[in-house]
């Protein structure tokens, strides 16, 4: 019997709507949510040391891992599953980038820390929609800070900035 049991914290439902935004998502679920109806081809990338340096220079964000989990969406665009550090734990998240290189959506896949999960709030995440590598992506600037979740919101913002730089420098040049 195919089924999956999920327990959604009640406070998460209060903080953010729609309900989907509060569910801990698997990669497959996030893909289906962010690119409805698309199929996905994995296109995992291992960054070279030079590429990592170029990304760091372009985004001013440290690159933690050379391994990049990327899928191409059949409807055009890219799906990247990645993680950033919150306060103590990694925050797995996903970024959908459209065929023109702009952010389509950001989803938090999992949140393990006690505080700061306001980054799952849909309206906060919606601020990233349409951002490209040329956007400042500064917390307190074009991305609002969340009081009580400063570290998580800063690191997600940095993560999106880093992935947009990664897209521009690496993925956009990949042959399909």
């Amino acid at each position: 019997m195919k089924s999956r049991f999920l327990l959604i914290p009640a406070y998460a439902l209060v903080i953010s709507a729609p309900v989907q935004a509060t569910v801990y998502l698997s990669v497959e679920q996030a893909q289906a949510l962010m690119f409805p109806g698309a199929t996905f081809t994995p296109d995992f990338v291992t960054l070279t040391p030079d590429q990592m340096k170029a990304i760091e220079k372009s985004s001013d964000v440290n690159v933690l891992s050379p391994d990049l989990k990327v899928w191409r969406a059949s409807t055009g665009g890219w799906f990247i599953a990645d993680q950033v550090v919150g306060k103590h734990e990694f925050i797995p998240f996903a970024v959908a980038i459209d065929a023109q290189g702009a952010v389509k959506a950001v989803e938090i896949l999992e949140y393990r820390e006690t505080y700061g999960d306001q980054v799952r709030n849909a309206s906060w995440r919606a601020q990233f929609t349409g951002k490209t590598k040329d956007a400042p992506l500064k917390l307190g600037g074009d991305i609002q800070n969340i009081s009580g979740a400063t570290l998580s919101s800063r690191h997600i913002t940095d993560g999106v900035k880093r992935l947009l730089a990664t897209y521009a420098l690496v993925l956009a040049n990949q042959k399909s």
Partner: protein
Amino acid sequence: MGEARAHQAIDEAFSAIERVHALMSFHEAGSDLSRLHAAVPGERVILDVQTVDVLREALTLSGRTDGAFDVTVAAQLVAGGLLPAPTSGSLPADGACWKDIDMDDDRSVSLRRPLWIDLGGIAKGYAVDRAVDVLCSHGVGHACVNAGGDLRTLGEGPHRVAIATDETQPSHYPVIELGEASMATSSGRAFSTAATGPHIDGRHRSTMGLNQSVTVIAEQCMHADALTKVVMAMETQSADLLRHYNAVAYLQDAAGHWTQLGVST
């Protein structure tokens, strides 16, 4: 599928549910159960093949659970004010149970002692199954038949179903992502301040599940429906039986803790 065809399929699915209700209602005069309750012990009553199906499945489950699942607990439900007393026939004999129901290989059923049968713990799931059969026969590929507490899906979905646990202040909301399957939930929590709840353990005839919530996922909705009562009564001891039906159960205890039983998902 065109709209007219879809409406026809849906109308026929509702008719299939109404038919099960008319046959297996506890209180409606003329239902198979009312006719059986009015018969004298030993008198053979010819029942509809669908009622026979459900009754046979119920007795199989009674045998497999040593009577924890028992459709003759209607006497306790009437005593508790949860069912209206039948107006014809004798009052149930003390100690009458599922073993007093005699079924032939054909459609005739007789009672060895006066007793009352309530199929409320299994027939709703069966009705959902019949509605799904109708939809399938019309070529419907994606559907959900939800009878309130008992539902069955067509198509792999995933269908996202939230479980109403009737907790007063839940810290978490349980959600099931369901493929093509059946799902049933039973809880007595709404009755926790009353003396009698809607679920009776057939072995000692006492109310159970006043502080539990049980959800079962199985292929057939009749099984999911009936197994919620089995899990309520037997808890972890129901695991083998759940596996026999290729079913999985999620049991929440009084303290709010969840246990998964049966096949692993």
